[in-house]
């Protein structure tokens, strides 16, 4: 086992060596521009793009003509939301989203508010899922788009996508989902799920950074987005710019591997995750955040009450994880996702996200359990709150001197 171990696979994943191998020829040998239609270099690049596009499309049950390559999921989110808003502005200006979305969606919505969009931010229930009745009630005759993520990046909960898309279509709006965390981890099918637009990226699924895609439905209905960048009219006019050939080759390979290995991998990962989670739950006052039935197989988000997340991460030696504590940011605000579940600030400050991945071994999980337990116990020995809790003091009744 090599230290430190990496358990932050929701932030990014290491690239699979098989992906790197597929990419290598496209840097120095087959370096052509896929838009060069008149020579062999261009044709070789175009052929590679076609194959990559086919693999990317296959992973989500789409047609390859429906894939628009971008620089990543953030760009795809921007293109989907801004692109639909501009394209369908004659139909209306109302967009429905949710408070636990990624910042790439939320900040894009905020940006559009300044340009006359009306945005509904749906709350979530305690388990992190949206309430379908609330969604139903949010529609107006101006609603053009619903944007709800597939799987959440912090807690891993999977939204009821089929139900959401059905309600959306009943009201004549389009459904967009940021599926960055879900694609390659669980089966995603744009037709079975009723998805009109979908964003995802390569680096969350063992592919390279800097490449992602937006799926844009071509039939029933035919969806169009207004381009956000002007240029050569690549990607059916929706996203100009010379294609990132090696990136797309890598993305395609990553999608192919995920499609072939996902089923077995999900079983393996959820068994490891459950082992980690059930061991850590034996620590007193530890709480799993988010719905555990509808969840990505590789994520566990746990709050260890009376210890602070950043301090805890520092004690979890030789392990890379992340925390909902925002002690490192200037705002000192803990995770907005955890707060949206109704977690108190102190529990949000005490949370750790464990993100397992393709290269996580059982030995590493055992090490993580051991290190986390040690760290939590060490910090509780240092914690005045733990001592007060043990003395039976109700911390909510203490008059804190806020700082």
């Amino acid at each position: 086992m090599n230290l430190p171990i990496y358990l932050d696979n929701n932030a990014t994943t290491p690239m699979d060596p098989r992906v790197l191998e597929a990419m290598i020829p496209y840097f120095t040998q087959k370096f052509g521009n896929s838009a060069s239609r008149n020579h062999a270099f261009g044709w070789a690049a175009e052929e590679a793009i076609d194959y990559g596009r086919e693999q990317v499309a296959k992973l989500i049950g789409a047609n390859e003509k429906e894939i628009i390559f971008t620089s990543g999921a953030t760009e795809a989110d921007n293109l989907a939301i801004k692109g639909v808003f501009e394209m369908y502005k004659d139909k209306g200006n109302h967009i429905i989203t949710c408070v636990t979305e990624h910042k790439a969606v939320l900040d894009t919505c905020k940006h559009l508010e300044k340009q006359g969009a009306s945005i509904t931010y749906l709350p979530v229930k305690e388990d992190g899922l949206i309430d379908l009745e609330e969604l139903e009630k949010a529609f107006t005759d101006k609603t053009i788009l619903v944007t709800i993520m597939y799987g959440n990046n912090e807690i891993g909960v999977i939204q009821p996508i089929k139900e959401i898309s059905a309600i959306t279509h009943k009201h004549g709006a389009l459904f967009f989902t940021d599926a960055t965390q879900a694609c390659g981890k669980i089966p995603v099918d744009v037709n079975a799920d009723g998805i009109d637009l979908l964003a995802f990226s390569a680096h969350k699924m063992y592919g390279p950074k800097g490449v992602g895609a937006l799926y844009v439905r071509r039939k029933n209905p035919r969806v169009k987005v207004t381009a956000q960048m002007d240029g050569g009219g690549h990607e059916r006019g929706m996203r100009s710019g010379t294609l990132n050939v090696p990136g797309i080759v890598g993305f395609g390979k990553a999608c192919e591997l995920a499609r072939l290995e996902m089923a077995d991998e999900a079983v393996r990962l959820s068994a490891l995750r459950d082992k980690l989670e059930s061991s850590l739950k034996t620590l007193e006052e530890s709480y799993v955040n988010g719905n555990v039935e509808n969840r990505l197989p590789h994520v566990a988000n746990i709050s260890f009450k009376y210890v602070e997340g950043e301090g805890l991460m520092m004690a979890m030696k030789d392990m890379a994880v992340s925390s909902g504590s925002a002690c490192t940011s200037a705002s000192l605000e803990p995770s907005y996702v955890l707060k949206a579940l109704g977690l108190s600030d102190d529990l949000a400050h005490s949370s750790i996200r464990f993100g397992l991945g393709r290269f996580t071994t059982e030995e590493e999980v055992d090490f993580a359990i051991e290190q986390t337990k040690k760290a939590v116990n060490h910090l509780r020995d240092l914690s005045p709150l733990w001592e007060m809790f043990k003395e039976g003091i109700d911390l909510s009744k203490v008059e804190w001197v806020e700082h």
Partner: protein
Amino acid sequence: MAYSDKVIDHYTNPRNVGTLDKSSTKVGTGLVGAPECGDVMRLQIEVNEENVITDAKFKTFGCGSAIASSSLATEWLKGKTIDEAMSIDNMDIVEELALPPVKIHCSVLAEDAIKAAINDYRTKNGLEPIESEKSHH
């Protein structure tokens, strides 16, 4: 952001962790911060007849810099008179631990905890609490 070696040292081997008898008239206790803010420090001092701090203990809920700031504070407090302790400035802690700007509030909290402990001791012994000229709030 990497931690300085001194922060790591205090964090890994915190000095003077523990609890003094808060009902004793020789002991002053300062509890500052709030769980919602992600930082709570409890700093205690034991003072003899000559107004010298003979012992200091802390417990802290917070990030590595908060733990290191309070650990350092207890080290500095031991052997100091109350007056000397009152003059400990948060910027001394920032300098000693090489805290980055986003962590300055940890040192402020440690200074507040020192002052709160001293004032608790003074009030217990029939003395007026000392008003701090600085206001961090």
